[in-house]
């Protein structure tokens, strides 16, 4: 792919030099720290309220590291995914709207490399920031509580990364198809909500990508988890979405 390495380097440098570096990594780190803190302080918070809410006595088990990890995974699957969808609404279209894309694509850079570099660079950012946030979550949890099931956490985080990759690919496609970032983000949020709804139906969650977040949480809780089929369909869907994005982008006018 002509120019992929140069474009990838530019994308990574752009991430560091602009607001992008603060958004997803910021949300991820916030999730990692807040999950441990909330789990740790929740019993004390409830106790200070008298141990009951609206007259109903609430008895929480003692906080554990596994609970903190579960809280972290929950944050990833909701807040971070929402931030990802909104942040990447203009991942391709913003360059075309600003005019920088025209100047770049008039050079011998293939359109495939242009889109792939954007996808790869943000995948790198997501993977690195997730690894860092997970490490921070483990560290803060260990300081406040104890060390939990690290292998299960790693596996669950890996499954979440596959889900995030799927949504990143989806946003790349939407950003190729829809010139307005807000429209792409809106469509992305709609599809994400649809995936959550699908996840409520057992059969569909067993094989569709919507089963990935719940499978990760089940792994952390030591419950039986169906994750192979959702993982495969997620990766396959990511590939299909990216191929579609490349196909449409190769044919559109700049």
């Amino acid at each position, binding site marked *: 792919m002509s120019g992929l390495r140069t474009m990838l380097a530019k994308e990574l440098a752009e991430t560091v030099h602009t607001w992008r570096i603060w958004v997803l990594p910021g949300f991820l780190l916030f999730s990692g720290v807040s999950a441990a803190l909330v789990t740790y302080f929740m019993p004390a918070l409830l106790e200070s309220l008298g141990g009951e809410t609206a007259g109903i006595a609430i008895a929480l088990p003692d906080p554990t590291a596994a609970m903190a990890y579960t809280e972290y995974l929950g944050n990833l699957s909701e807040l971070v995914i929402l931030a990802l969808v909104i942040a990447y609404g203009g991942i391709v279209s913003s360059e075309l709207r600003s*005019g920088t894309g*025209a100047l770049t694509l008039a050079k*011998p850079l293939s359109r495939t490399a242009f889109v792939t570099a954007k996808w790869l660079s943000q995948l790198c950012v997501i993977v690195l920031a997730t690894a860092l946030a997970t490490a921070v979550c483990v560290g803060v949890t260990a300081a406040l509580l104890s060390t939990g099931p690290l292998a299960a956490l790693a596996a669950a985080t890996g499954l979440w990364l596959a889900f995030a990759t799927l949504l990143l690919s989806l946003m790349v496609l939407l950003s190729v198809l829809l010139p307005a970032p807000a429209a792409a983000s809106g469509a992305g949020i709609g599809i994400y909500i649809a995936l959550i709804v699908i996840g409520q139906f057992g059969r569909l969650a067993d094989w569709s990508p919507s089963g990935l977040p719940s499978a990760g949480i089940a792994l952390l809780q030591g419950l039986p988890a169906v994750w192979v089929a959702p993982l495969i369909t997620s990766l396959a869907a990511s590939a299909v979405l990216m191929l579609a994005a490349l196909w449409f982008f190769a044919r559109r006018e*700049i």
Partner: protein
Amino acid sequence: MTEAPPLDSVWLIALLAVVVAVELGLLIWALVDLVRRPATQITGGNKILWLLLSVFVQVLGPILYLTVGRRRDVEPAEEVRRPSAPEPPPPPGAGSPSGAGGPARPGGAPAGTGGHAQAASHVTRAAAFLYGEAGDAVGEPRAARDGDAPAPAPIRRLTTPAVELAGVRKVFKGAAALDGLTLSVPEGSVFGFLGPNGAGKTTTLRILAGLARPTSGDARVLGHEAGADGRTRALIGYLPDVPAFYKWMNAAEYLRFSGRLFGLEGARLESRIAALLELADLGRVTTRIGGYSRGMKQRLGIAQALINAPRLLLLDEPTSALDPIGRREVLDMVAALRGRTTVFFSTHILADVERVCDTVAIIDRGRVVEQAAIDELRRRRHGLNRLVIDVDDPGRLADALVGQPWLRAVAPAESGGLVLSVDDLAAAQRALPHVLAAAGVALERLETNELSLEDVFVGLVGERQA
């Protein structure tokens, strides 16, 4: 496992109060900013979406808006140009600078004709280095090692035109932006692509640059299908009418990025960057591109278009929004490239075409209405010359001129006399005294004028629009 310490209710309330205060503060900050900020400075341009997000997504909504939703438009920095002293180092292999300096003009070069000559000289040196060093791309290698303004390397003339368009149509939503456009641009020329706004100039350049495709017809660049693949695009340089750059880069970083896309690396790339920064008068500018003025961006745009020493340089209205000094500098750059590469230069400014172009095509409503060398165009269209003649009785002279074989047209002059368009100037000059004597009118003034390009342009485009 460590036991969580019980929290005192007072501290808890204080903590909650801080959290609520932060949340409310963020919300108010976001809402006030949202109301005051124009939609054009908001990501996505949708205020309602950001309003809903800020109000209904607790804490994260306002944070998201304040970090992602706001676009900061950087005010352009003052025009930064090269001071007259000390002279910046010449590009490698470009020889020593010429000229004795003199007082600096605001635009950077010394005042007066000498200043312009010196400014033009540094442009010429940079262009000579670029095409000398990259001579293999356009013709015989020729390094500019001695002398200030070495003669351009000869272009290897090919039988294939640099640009060839045959019956190109481009339709947007049912409206034809190009309607059977046909033209041919010889390699090595500075080609003026002239037309009124909306004539199809930008669409044509976008097709040649590979950013758009013709609906029908054939568009070829240096013998290859326009924009078909990277190999074709590697031969061209392109400057759009409003160039947009990555604001977080500086000029050298952008040129490095551009050069690497053309496969340039190492010392070869760095020497070209140095030469082009001098060409664009940006060698001493360290600020990021987001702070550049329009003129600086335009000069950087030309520099990036030249990074590959292209065999075809496509410039889309490069002077349209520049002040007189910036315009002169851009035209100097184009003039310095004469004989080194083919320049395809779209504009609606007739004076620019007359100044730097040797061949011109006039386009109107998506079709070429005339294509020729500028002199040939004047000759072909309205005859060679026009005569402005003032007499004591213009009406009687106009009657007497009817039927003269050398006369093409008669029109009233601003002075009150007549403007005669003539096919054969010599015949007119011989016959006019006899006509004046026969009509019995007294000659007060006789002036010979060449037809300007503007006369030709208005004649051609005006006729079609009438």
